[in-house]
């Protein structure tokens, strides 16, 4: 529409002149545009603020002394700046050991289990997604329906059975025959690695789905050319398909990393012996009252505001590594996912 107008009216004319000639249309249109962008800006700002605000509040309250919390004249800026809160939370969440040395035990535990598990998950889901995307085989639809089922079934449904399964792990009674009783695998990372290697980890159905979508979009001629040149199955996969899919794989890895980092369900069921950060975080309230009972010598109820402050710091500890990671990989996160979607 605007292009039509400019042809007749000319761009170097003044706005009001052009408006007069268009019979008031231009003014109506322009004010509509401005109103729209103002509303848009307000909406975006409000929502963005709402997302960021809890983080800012937690940051601000994290350095407040305890007396500041009860001072109603203080909302954001602390009067008594202190870093003691961080030390307390570090001790509560096993970042510091009993001799109050920064060992970062829970954080390091979380890091290695998360990296291990995510790598296992990504390897297996990439293979499976590739199989579904590029090969024709009988019962393919049935197995893919199983993938959809895997996405839909809440893992909580099978929680009890899995718990039992791994507490008394046995394959066809082999261990029973050797050692006299089934082995308890619940105290090691093995069950979860096994599950990750077989695509049964956290949200793995989703990763299969996403990567399959990407692999499907790669032109078939590429594969055929490779075959003509004497490239075997594994060779085609590793040399041709993988480099192409690397951005999608990376974004799936990031998702897997982030979700595994904060995951509670699988951690509680399979990794409860490792003192992961998410486990520490989930039980921080009960540990808090114990801690203060020891330090203050008597059993006192931890005040509400104080509890909230300490929980907030623990949440910060948990999310800040992820936010830093996100800032560096934001592009991978968003854009490669957009690429998978566009192929649908």
């Amino acid at each position, binding site marked *: 529409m605007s292009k039509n107008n400019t042809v007749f009216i000319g761009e170097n004319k003044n706005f009001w002149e052009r408006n007069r000639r268009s019979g008031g249309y231009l003014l109506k249109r322009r004010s509509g545009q401005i109103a729209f962008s103002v509303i848009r800006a307000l909406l975006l700002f409000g929502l963005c603020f709402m997302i960021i605000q809890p983080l800012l509040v937690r940051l601000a309250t994290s350095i407040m002394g305890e007396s500041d919390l009860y001072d109603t004249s203080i909302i954001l800026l602390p009067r008594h700046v202190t870093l003691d809160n961080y030390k307390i939370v570090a001790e509560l969440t096993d970042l510091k050991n009993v001799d109050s040395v920064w060992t970062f035990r829970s954080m390091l535990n979380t890091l290695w289990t998360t990296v291990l598990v995510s790598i296992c998950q990504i390897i297996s889901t990439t293979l499976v997604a590739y199989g579904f995307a590029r090969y024709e085989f009988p019962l393919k639809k049935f197995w893919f329906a199983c*993938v959809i089922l895997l*996405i839909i079934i809440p893992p909580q449904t099978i929680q009890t*059975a899995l718990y039992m399964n791994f507490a008394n792990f046995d394959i066809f009674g082999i261990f029973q025959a050797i050692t006299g009783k089934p082995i308890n695998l619940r105290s090691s990372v093995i069950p979860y690695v096994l599950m990750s290697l077989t695509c049964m980890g956290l949200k793995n159905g989703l990763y299969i789905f996403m990567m399959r979508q990407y692999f499907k979009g790669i032109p078939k001629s590429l594969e055929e050319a490779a075959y003509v040149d004497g490239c075997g199955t594994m060779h085609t996969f590793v040399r041709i398909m993988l480099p192409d899919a690397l951005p999608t794989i990376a974004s799936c890895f990031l998702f897997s990393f982030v979700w595994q980092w904060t995951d509670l369900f699988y951690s509680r069921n399979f990794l409860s012996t490792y003192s992961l950060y998410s486990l520490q975080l989930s039980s921080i309230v009960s540990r808090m009252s114990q801690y203060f009972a020891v330090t203050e010598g008597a059993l006192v109820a931890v005040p*509400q505001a104080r509890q909230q402050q300490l929980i907030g710091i623990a949440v910060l500890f948990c999310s800040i590594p992820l936010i830093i990671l996100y800032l560096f990989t934001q592009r991978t996160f*968003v854009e490669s996912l957009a690429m998978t*979607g566009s192929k649908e």
Partner: protein
Amino acid sequence: MSAKERKVREHWYSGITESIQMLIPGNRIYQTMPAKRARSGYLFILPFILGFLLFMIKPLIESFIMSLNIVTLVPGKGYDKVWTGLDNYAYAFTVDPYFNEYLLDEIQRMAINTVAVLVLSFVIAVILNQKFKGRTLARAIFFLPVILSSGVLPGIEKQNEMYNMMTSIAESIGASSGVNLSKSLQDLLSVSGVGSGVFDIIFQMIDAIYDIVMASGIQIIVFLSGLQAISPSLYEAADVEGSSGWESFWKITFPMVSPLLLVNCIYTIIDFFMKNDNRVMERINTVMFTQFRFGESSAMSWIYFGVAILFIGISSLVITRTVKSYE
């Protein structure tokens, strides 16, 4: 009957027999290229098949059996079970003091949240797809909830019993700090005689806006990817034909993205059911880990699973029916 006709006929089990025959390495009929490819295809998805059978179907069946039994732990041996039929389900509904209430609550919350998440994430995706200053920053912030609302993080503050008590007291007295805008607006509307049922739901959505925004990170990404896949030439053509922005939104944008509505709807429902701050889930965990009632907790999770499937089924039916006409 000619040989050709016989070949065409397919039985329900033909896929199974065919796949078994193909997997036998020495079988000479299946030395063809497609058969080889089928074999390698099976090799690729083998991890999934193994995992699905071992760690999904087997526990699923076991947990279903458990839900029909009274299960007691026997140290060193595993567990003992005594058949009780549907008693565990009856327990969940009639004996357990919280399960019913929580389940109804969560279902209601989920229905409202799902609709709200879908609408909001669609609107935000449309906005984030436009060109304006600071778009990259806005996008980065809107995807932050993917991190901030995952795993333990969302429910952690509500887990605090004291906090819950305090907020419920504050709400009942109405002594929250400042003026509660939505509450007073709601009062105003109900006084002026506007139908209250619908408004109740809308105000519930407004009050839960934080939860809704935090739950819609992935959905925004999915919608945005759909929006970016729409060819700009469609809009140009519409523009030339004299369609306004509003019209081309409803005639181009919405129909093009609406297939993703189903994906997002299912994702939202599942995400909601698996969220950590879900009270039904908490209840199941308490029954299982602190009361060691394994049978009852299995029954509860099966009821919960049934509800989830029911909702996914209903919503996919509704969405495919209404959206089909656009495609």
